[in-house]
């Protein structure tokens, strides 16, 4: 009976309560029949109840409210006994295990990070290693708890989990906001586990736990989860690849029994093996990064000195499927930022939200954001604030944008440490005069006005395309405008058009698709040339460059010369001995350079 656990469930809280009392009664009677007296003190025996569904709140209040009786009354032959009850902790744990989702876990991790940010976040009193260790112990352990059942089959979820973890890792590094660290660099500097390896280790530990209590594990259910079992298979393969040179473990594909034996009978050893596999993967990754880094550095030096015949290796990058483009210039861009930069440079467009503020405080929610860039980001995302300000119809001259000296000064003063501060005071009444628009009103009106004169769908399409060519706008704005027209045009509005309402709507629907705009469908490929490549690519480059001997030339720049005082590095010198390199160098220096060729021992 020692360390026993009995699970039960019921339809509603009342029945659950009754079942709990019955079960406790049966168990206590059984103990008595064996002349045993169970210890019913708190912390020794407990009924753990999780109330859910209808009546749960009342049941919680009844049993755990301020006036609740302690313990669950259990009727026995000798009278009523009370068994200690516990609910909240168990409830939390069960919810965490059952419902833990990557997004929730990440949000909770971020919250925790913000709470103890002062300790972790660029604390100069703690070394980076110490901060990483704290992060691993306090936060990562919480994050991975219960994630062993995640399969992360969708690319989007995998990407989300990876990037959100890497962002938190990155925040541990000094000047994280200003220095563009690559993922490899972040992992190298912090020494933290790669997210995918982290999940692998977690699953493998969980597998060990399952095998160690294999008798009570519902293997049928587990085997039915093919996604998870497939992942575990690949994890075992990964582990074997990490350990095959340092242990005698056979290939799990052919000798899985040996692995099962370890998991079942040597649980601590299994955990040690899993940890060792993770350490090996991390060390290999760091070694690879270190080698790649010095290759990159050497090639960069040689290129700067104009010693290389050709530039860095380049590759073709296909433009993203999500189109960003300028409708007037018929140009497609790789990102929204690139498109925005084009719109500002060529057409003088600024983001509409920049006309909604001239200080760093949001005029709607009164939060202080400390920089124009941050306030702009807030207004882009916070629909309520943006729409509220738009409705006030109070537009101002655009404040300095991201990348401006003013914004940089604000960011530098902020140092990325201060969160937005809530402002207190009377809120202005919501505006009523203006309208909150997220589309291009000028285009909207222009299209409608011109549609009044068209007589056929083809003519209407040509007219819309002409408007796109005449008024500078991004594809995103243009599409939103077409969709707004589609939704806002009433029967009265369409009745006065030269084409039928159906034709009008279908035309707008059709032109809202990017496939209707040839320049947005171009599978454009961009040549990207830089030195931050994988090692094998850099080595291929070296071989190719070494073979092009006809293009060899001396350093492009004439060396500027050394001063009178010069230092020579004798690397890996060890301690000085008579007759070592330094000995001769000093001796030769003390005599004269001319002696060097005439005093050889052989001659």
């Amino acid at each position: 009976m020692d360390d026993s656990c009995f699970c039960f469930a019921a339809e509603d809280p009342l029945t659950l309560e009754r079942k709990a009392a019955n079960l406790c009664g049966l168990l206590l009677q059984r103990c008595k029949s064996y002349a045993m007296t169970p210890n019913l003190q708190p912390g020794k025996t407990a009924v753990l109840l999780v109330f859910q569904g209808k009546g749960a709140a009342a049941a919680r209040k009844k049993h755990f409210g301020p006036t609740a009786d302690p313990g669950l009354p259990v009727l026995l032959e000798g009278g009523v006994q009370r068994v200690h009850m516990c609910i909240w902790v168990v409830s939390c744990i069960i919810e965490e295990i059952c419902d833990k989702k990557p997004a929730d876990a990440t949000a909770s991790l971020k919250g925790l990070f913000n709470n103890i940010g002062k300790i972790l976040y660029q604390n100069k009193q703690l070394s980076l290693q110490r901060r990483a260790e704290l992060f691993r112990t306090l936060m990562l352990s919480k994050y991975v708890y219960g994630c062993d059942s995640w399969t992360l089959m969708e690319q989007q979820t995998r990407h989300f989990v990876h990037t959100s973890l890497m962002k938190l890792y990155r925040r541990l590094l000094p000047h994280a906001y200003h220095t563009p660290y690559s993922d490899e660099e972040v992992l190298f500097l912090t020494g933290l586990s790669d997210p995918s390896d982290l999940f692998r280790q977690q699953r493998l530990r969980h597998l060990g736990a399952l095998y160690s209590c294999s008798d009570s594990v519902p293997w049928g259910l587990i085997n039915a989860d093919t996604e998870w079992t497939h992942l575990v298979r690949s994890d075992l393969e990964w582990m074997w690849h990490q350990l095959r040179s340092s242990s005698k473990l056979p290939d799990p594909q052919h000798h899985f029994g040996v692995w099962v034996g370890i998991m079942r009978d040597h649980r601590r050893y299994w955990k040690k093996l899993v940890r060792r596999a993770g350490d090996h993967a991390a060390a290999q990754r760091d070694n690879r990064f270190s080698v790649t880094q010095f290759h990159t550095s050497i090639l960069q030096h040689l290129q700067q000195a104009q010693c290389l015949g050709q530039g860095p290796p380049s590759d073709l990058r296909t433009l993203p499927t999500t189109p960003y483009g300028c409708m007037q210039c018929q140009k497609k861009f790789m990102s929204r930022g690139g498109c925005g930069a084009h719109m500002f440079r060529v057409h003088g467009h600024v983001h509409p939200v920049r006309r909604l503020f001239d200080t760093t405080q949001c005029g709607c929610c009164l939060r202080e954001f400390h920089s124009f860039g941050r306030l702009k980001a807030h207004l882009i995302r916070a629909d309520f604030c943006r729409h509220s300000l738009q409705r006030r119809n109070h537009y101002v001259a655009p404040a300095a944008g991201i990348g401006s000296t003013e914004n940089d000064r604000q960011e530098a003063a902020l140092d990325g440490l201060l969160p937005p501060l809530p402002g207190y005071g009377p809120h202005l009444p919501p505006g009523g005069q203006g309208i909150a628009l997220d589309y291009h009103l000028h285009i909207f009106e222009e299209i409608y006005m011109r549609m009044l004169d068209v007589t056929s769908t083809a003519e209407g399409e040509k007219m819309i395309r002409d408007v796109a060519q005449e008024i500078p706008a991004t594809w995103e704005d243009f599409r939103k405008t077409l969709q707004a027209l589609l939704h806002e045009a009433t029967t009265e509005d369409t009745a006065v058009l030269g084409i039928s309402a159906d034709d009008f709507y279908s035309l707008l629907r059709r032109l809202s698709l990017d496939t209707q705009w040839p320049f947005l469908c171009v599978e454009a490929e961009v040549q990207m040339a830089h030195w931050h490549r994988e090692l094998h690519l850099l080595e291929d480059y070296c071989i190719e460059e070494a073979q092009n001997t006809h293009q060899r030339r001396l350093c492009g720049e004439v060396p500027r010369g050394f001063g009178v005082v010069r230092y020579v590095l004798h690397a890996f010198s060890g301690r000085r001995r008579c007759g070592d390199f330094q000995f001769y160098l000093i001796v030769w220096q003390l005599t004269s350079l001319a002696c060097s060729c005439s005093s050889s021992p052989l001659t």
Partner: protein
Amino acid sequence: MQLFVISLDVVIDATWGDISRQQTREFWLAAIRARWVVAIIGGPPCETWSQARERSIEGHDFAPRVLRVPEHPWGVPSLRLKELRQIRVGNDLMGFILEAVVMLYCVGGVAALEHPAEPASESSVSIWKTPILALLLSLPGIDLVSLAQGLWGAKSPKPTSFVVVNAPDMRQALRNWQITRELPKGISIGRDQAGGWSTAVLKEYPPSLNGGLAAGLLAAIGQCAQDPTHTVPASFVARCAPMLCTEYGEHIGPDFAG
């Protein structure tokens, strides 16, 4: 011209002689870029590259094994954690000296990098077979000088190669210091009578080789361009002061390569 030799080794200075530290590497590379350092000479640890690892030793089941193969010259994909640490240190030190050599090449300085010569066997790994060395050796002003240290007084032949940067007279200077025309017959693989590794004694170059290297390097340094207005800051001089060794010991000291 005033010349100072800095002993860049962890036994001399635990912080600024420890090249496995990232900050130390950055400091010395910055000094080279600033043209305070005119030359570098050194042989990064060859223990993880050594051909001796390919030989099995009777009675030693745990003798050092091959950690690099021609397909993976920077370390095979699966190793013991201790071996990985060795590989990592070896790669870091090799990376530092290669980077220093390239930087000196770019600023018009002098450099000499020593490593065991390329093995005859195709299946043996060597830094001379790596693409980065192939590229460096294809640059004008960078030469490969191969020799057997036995001809300069080592107890075994020990074929060795040097990457020599901006030192065209190095070959001649070394030849001037050659002390014999016959290769010694000794072999330096496995354990010696005292139980130590036979390769350990070869970590020190024979004095004649040192003499030749010093002569060749000094001649090359003398030919480097001069800029009398270029001065070395006091902070750098102060940091280097403890590393300018004047006292002599009897042997090279322990090997800290891993």
